[in-house]
Structures are given as C-alpha cells and as structure tokens.
C-alpha cells in the first residue's frame, strides 16, 4: 500500500473515457505535458534573463546613472538579454553545424540518462553513472588505442569493452545491494570517487600515457576504433547508438520478461518477491544494464569526439544524467528529449559565452531552473493560468529511500 500512496491520488479511479476539463477542448496528455514543459522553459529563461541583467557590465554602468537616463538601463538590459539569448538559440539550432553540435553534446547525456532511468524504474537511485561512465571510458579507450585491429572489429571490441567496464562498475552496486543490503546511494557515491582516482592513477602508468608525453593524457584511439562521423561535423554514429539504446531500454522495460520483472520490483518489491521473482537478481540485472548504458556513454566520449582519456573525460555527464533522467520522468522517450534539450543548452551556452561573454554557469542555472519548473507543473500553472490541467503529474520516479 504505502509504496503507492504517492502516485495514487493522481490516478482518477475511472478514467474510462479520458477525464476532460469542463469547457476545454480535450488536449491529449502529451500535448498538455509539452505545453507545460514549454512554459517551464519560458519561465526559466525569464529567471536567466534577470541574472544576465544583474551581471551585465553595461547594465551595471547604466544603473549607476539610472536617475539621469533610466531608459539607458532598460535598453542596456534588453540588449544584453536579447543578444545572449539570440546567441544561445543560434548556437543550439541555428544551422546544420550547431544542430550537429547539440546532438553531439546530447549523445552521452542520453545514454547516461537512460542508465539512471532504468535503475529508477527498478527502484534504485543510481548516482553512480559518473563512475560507471569513467570505467567504461577507460576500458573502451584502452582497447581503442592499445590494440590495433581491423576496421569494424576494432570499434565493436572497443564498444564492448566499454559496456563491460560500465556493467562491472554498476553490477557491483547491484550485487552489494542484493547480497548485503548496502544502500546503493552510498555505494554509488563512493564508487564514483574510486573510479576517478583509478583513472588518475592509470593515466600516470606507461600503459596509458601517450608515448613521448609525461602528461596524464592517453593517445587518441585508432581511427579504426572511432565511431564514424557524419560529414564534417563532430556528430558521430554514437548518437545513433544512443537512440538504439533508448529503443532497447523501451523494449526491455515494456516488452521483455526481464523488464516486467524490473518494473515490478521497482513498483512493489514485496509483491514481486511473493510472485516468485528474485528481487536481488533484479537489482543486479538492473545495475548491470544501467552500468553498461553509462559505459556506452563512456565509449561515446573516447571513441566519438576525438577525446583522449584524461581525468576530465567524464566531465559532469554522470551527474547531468540524473537531471536528464528526472526531467525525462524515467521513460526512454522522455530521457531522449531531455537529453536533446540539455545538449542544445550546452551547445548554445558555449556560443552565448563566446559572443556575449556570459559565463557558462548561467547555462547551469538555466538547466536547473527548467527542471525545477517542469517538475512543478502546479507552479507553472499558477503563473500561466491559461494552461489546461494535466492528468496526473506523470510517473513519480524513485520514491523514498526504502525503494
């Protein structure tokens, strides 16, 4: 019972015919949700605009003589915001190259997000995508630069190595949880640190160091082990793999016996155990697959964008992935869309800093505020009163710590 109390109130008991708002054309659920999300983005941009204005030098100057020429302040503010957001938009979707750049940025976020989503659906909170990604990148990178194999085979092996690496790091968490009850939140946090220190150490060994260099940087992987790129852009086949992974996760969750078990365990572990499922095994399987997905994101980092292995190979993708998964409400499609949005914001943010010298931290704030508003439709609706009511606020993801 208690497991479901959080979701229940939102489920109308008898929605045989979809419940409609009186006097409003019944928009389908996804459209309503889209509208709310869009409004949330608009609201977030407003918050961002305020920050831009506060931080803008011209505005700072103009405000100094606000009394003398108040319009200056306003126009300075308007210019600052306008230019910044124009750059953001252009950098994100203004042409083929920016779009390719956005998709490239989105690629590992999607896979990382899927890793978090899948675990969520099994009732596990995977803060460890970062560590899993790192281990995946280490193995994929190593196979990529240390081995020299024919085309295709090399890439396949490198990708598999990455998947295995991530799976080991994730599976370990599942195993510990299943066998000893060790809380996955603690274990994943700790393993993230272990992974990064492991990487830093490996980079000082001759097996990983680039020949002729003392710096902790590995060689770039062989051309044979790289994901083929699309034209002149940085976009690579890894993006397609991310989409395939999303479809796979969808299939796994909704059309496979394993996924049935995972979802059941995530929604009600006791009932699942009673129905003969092994909760521990579900945890292990979920974390293995989640780890592999994060590992896939790791391969995209080292096999996709010409990145050698450095201690920065994971950036903050593993953590951003949590936000992406949450924004995507734990569904594969949602995760893809959220990943794309974040990728676009990242790409646009770089352009924005370039053209208007707006710090990248603003992008971070924007991303946080967007998720905050998307997650609180009631708040968005209280600002934009025209928005229709949503049926249910969507899947509530991980519930409490008790899973």
């Amino acid at each position, binding site marked *: *019972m208690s*497991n*479901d109390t959080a*979701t*229940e109130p939102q*489920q*109308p*008991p*008898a*929605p*045989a015919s979809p*419940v409609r708002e009186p006097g409003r054309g019944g928009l389908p659920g996804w459209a309503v949700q889209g509208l709310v999300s869009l409004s949330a983005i608009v609201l977030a941009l407003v918050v961002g605009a305020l920050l831009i204005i506060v931080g803008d030098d011209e505005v700072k100057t103009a405000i100094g003589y606000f009394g003398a020429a108040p319009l200056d302040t306003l126009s300075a503010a308007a210019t600052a915001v306008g230019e910044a957001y124009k750059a953001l938009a252009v950098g994100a979707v203004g042409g083929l190259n920016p779009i390719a750049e956005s998709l490239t940025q989105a690629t590992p976020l999607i896979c990382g997000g899927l890793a978090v989503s899948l675990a969520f659906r099994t009732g596990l909170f995977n803060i460890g995508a970062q560590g899993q990604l790192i281990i995946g990148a280490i193995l994929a990178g190593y196979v990529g630069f240390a081995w020299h194999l024919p085309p295709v085979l090399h890439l396949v092996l490198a990708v598999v190595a990455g998947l295995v690496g991530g799976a080991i790091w994730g599976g370990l968490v599942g195993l510990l949880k299943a066998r000893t009850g060790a809380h996955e939140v603690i274990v994943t946090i700790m393993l993230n640190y272990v992974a990064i220190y492991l990487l830093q150490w490996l980079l000082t060994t001759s097996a990983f160091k680039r020949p002729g260099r003392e710096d902790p940087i590995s060689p770039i992987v062989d051309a044979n082990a790289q994901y083929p790129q699309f034209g002149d852009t940085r976009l690579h086949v890894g993006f397609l793999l991310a989409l395939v992974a999303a479809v796979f996760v969808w299939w796994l969750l*909704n*059309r*496979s*016996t*394993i*996924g*049935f*078990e995972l*979802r*059941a365990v995530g*929604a*009600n572990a*006791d*009932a*699942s*155990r*009673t*129905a*003969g*499922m*092994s909760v521990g095994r579900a945890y292990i399987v979920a974390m293995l697959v989640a780890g592999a997905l994060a590992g896939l994101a790791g391969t995209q980092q080292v096999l996709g964008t010409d990145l050698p292995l450095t201690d920065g190979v994971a950036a903050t993708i593993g953590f951003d992935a949590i936000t992406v998964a949450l924004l995507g409400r734990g569904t594969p499609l949602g995760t893809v869309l959220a990943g794309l949005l974040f990728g676009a914001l990242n790409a646009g943010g770089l352009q924005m800093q370039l053209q208007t010298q707006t710090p990248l931290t603003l992008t971070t704030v924007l991303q946080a505020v967007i998720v905050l508003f998307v997650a609180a439709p009631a708040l968005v609706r209280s600002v934009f009163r025209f928005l229709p009511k949503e049926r249910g606020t969507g899947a509530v993801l991980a519930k409490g710590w008790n899973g």
Partner: protein
Amino acid sequence: MHLELSGLTKSFGSLVANDHIDLVIEPGQIHCLLGENGAGKSTLMNMLYGLLQPDSGEIVIDGEKVAITSPRDAIGHGIGMVHQHFMLVPVFTVAENIMLGRENTHAGGVLDRKKAHALVTELSDRYGFAVDPDALVENIPVGVQQRVEIIKALTNDAKVLILDEPTAVLTPAEIDELIAVMRQLKDNGTSIVFITHKLKEVKAIADKITVIGRGKVVGSAEPSASEEELAELMVGRAVDLVVNKEPAQPGDPVLRVEGLTVIDERGFTAVDAVDLEVRAGEILAVAGVQGNGQTELAEALLGLTPIAAGTISLDGADLSHRSTRQRLDAGIGYVPEDRGHDGFVGSFSVAENLVLDLFRQAPFGTGLALRTDEIDRNAAARIEEFDIRTQGADLPVSSLSGGNQQKVVLARELSRPLKLLVASQPTRGVDVGSIEFLHSRIVEERDRGTAVLIVSTELDEIAALADRVAVMYRGKVVGVVPSDTPRDELGLMMAGASQREAEVEATENPTTLGTI
C-alpha cells in the same frame, strides 16, 4: 451530542464516492453503517473527521452548522475516530502514540513521559485493557494495537466515537470485550458510529442501522432484521450466507509439514515446531488471532521467510530450501494476507497483475519477449470469468475496490493447475457479495482435487470453508479439530486453551456472538 450530516457529497475524479448522504446520530446511540466494499462508508466518516473535505453538504452539531476542515477541528468538536487502517506510528511506543498530538510537556517543550505513562495505565485499567505503555507498537499483536487505537480515541473525551471496522482483527472474546466497552460508553452518553461487515455484530449491538450503497443511503433497518435481510439490503440481491459444499473427498496427503520452525527478524520464535498435513481435495483452515505465527507459516510454505528447522514437502518432494519461484512452479498457488503489500503491484495494470507470476511461461513469455497480446487476451478471459469490476484491463489495480483487487489475485492463482492453494485471509475486508463468490471458487478448486490451506482469523469464514481446523497459538498448533466445533470453543483455543479446556469453558461462559 446530536449530530446531523446533510447532503454530504464527495467525488474522486469522476467517481462519486458519497452522493448527498443524510445521516442523523442521536446522543447515546450506537449507529451501524453497513455497505459493500467501496460503498463510501469510510469516505463519509473521513469527511466527518476532517480528513476529507466534502464537495458540498453540511455538518450540524447540536443545531449548529460547523466547518470541519481538519482532524483538529473534529477533535475540538468532540469527535473521535478509530480508523479502518491503524493510525499508529509503528516505531513509537504505546505511550508515545497516545500522547502524540496532545503532549504534556515540561518547560521548553520537553515531553512529560511520566504523565503519558500514567494516562495509559489509568485508561487501560478503567476499560480493562491490559496495555504496556512501553511496548513498541510494531511489536504488539494487532488486537492490542486496536486497543491502543481505542484508548487514543477515548483520551479525547469524545462525544461521538467513530469505529471504522474495528473488529476485523479481533478474536470473538476480544470482540465481546469491545462490545462491552461500547455499551459502557453509550451509557455515559457517548454516541457511536460503528462500521463492520459482520452482520452478527450489527445485530448484537446496533440501535439503528443505515445501509450505504454506491455512495447513497439505500435504506435503513432495525437490529431485529435477519442477517439475510441485511445482506440483501447491502448487495441488492439475495445472498447465500452459507457456502453450499459437498463433504470433502480427501485423497492422499499433498502437503506435509514437519517440525517447522521460523525465527523472525527480531529473533523471536514465530512458528514453533509445527506439524501439519493437507490432503488432496480437502480444505484445512488454520485459525488463530493474528500474530500467532500464521503469517510466517504461510510465508515459510512459499519460501518467503527462511526456515530455521523442519521440512516442507509437496507430493513427497522436499521443498524446504527451494526458492519461491520453484515452489510456485511446483504447483503451489498463493493468496497473501496483505494484498496491497504482497498480492499485487498497485501501479501495474489489471492485465499485468493477472500474470504477475506467470509472465515467464508460455504463452505470455517466449524467451525474452513478452507477448502483450496474450496477456491482454488472458485478462479479458479472467475478468469475464471472475466478474472483476473494472473499467478496463489496462487500468492500474490500485484503482479497483478491495473486493475486486482480491478477485484479481485469486483469479491469477486459480488460472493455472495447482496441487496446493495457500490462501491467507482470502476475504478480509471484502463485502458479503464478493465473499460468496470467492468462497465458492475456493470450494470449486477443492473439488477439483487441490489441497487447500486457508489461513483466517474469521470464524465465519472458517465455518463456511473448512473441512478441518488447525488452531494456532504462539506459533504452535494447539489442536486440529473438526469444522463443526462450536465457535466459542474455537475462540478459546485461539486464546491458548487446549481443546479440552475450551470445551468446558465454552459451555460455562458463552459469549454474546456465540449465542446469536
């Protein structure tokens, strides 16, 4: 206190749970509310207690219209309530639970535990409850928890006391005590609203009976009305209160339990060297007050709780250390006691829940792939067969009423060939109409030659279903008796008496309910 509810209406989404309900409760009256599962009884009472806000309608106390927007207001107006689902904090002690919300404190908000202690002792003495103020609630039996709930309600000096299905977990003797307390309260001028599914109790104590159906008042009756009349009023058709079953044709023993011992997580002995045997084609009922090890017994049979000693064998094969899945595959069907907790996944659809332990097998699962079309087809068939009332197989089970949820669980378990059916509390909280149906399905399964083990605290249910009765007390089986053993005698055995002692005591001191 004179209490009047008029035109109370409450809907959840498109479902109207209460539809213009009028009700008058006179001072010093015991007012029984009857109705099928999901009729809206708890909803009505929750509005009166401020837990739910009515969409429309009003509450009038002693001629004055009042607004009750929270339990706080209700308490202020002298209304107390014992809830259908216990409102106790399991990790608190009895005293903490009782002081919660109106704590006596020293300076600086520091709890005055002594006072709380004294209060518990005083009240439990006054009403003859023996409750240990320092016991953790999660460690005491449900019967005692129920007393704690009642003490909680009484400490507020309630003038109207609402009791929502308080007897579901009590032994006949405990029910007797409760009835005595209710009479005592009534004599002091307290009015009581009493909700129960047990018609015997209603007849024993009610001053007035109101029947609610589908959110509306559908009638009222006098205590003198017969059980059959009351049942018909509730369900809207004639109901067979006795299951018509042929005498059992027991075959070979199917389940054999020897020396089974289970130690619970806290290191207490839950099941103590139990020996049992269930034959093909017979129903063995395990009777007992909740908390005497029946739950653990059933779970141990399914491998959900590890056993400390003893053996379990099915058709001669030793299952003692098999996994739950292997036992299910070996032909055990299981209806768990707490359906919401163990029986189904609330957020899963009806269709998915109908294959919760079958999804791996053909035709539902082929290899890794899940055949959703087969799952849907199965759902349509089961819904039809078991008359599951749902507006769609794709709706979450949590949106079904309790009785229908139970049908889902039973339908799933009975939809595959079984050697043994273990059903715990198969009809707890289920209304008489559904009980009738579920019982007949269980008997049908028996007649098909399945061994059936029922765990129940309801003597009515045991009387209706059992071929033999095993009574458990403190983890031990105190006796296995024929199904026609008088209920008072069973009740005494459930309190620990041996069969002989029970026989003597029951004839000397018959209980109220035993004589109706």
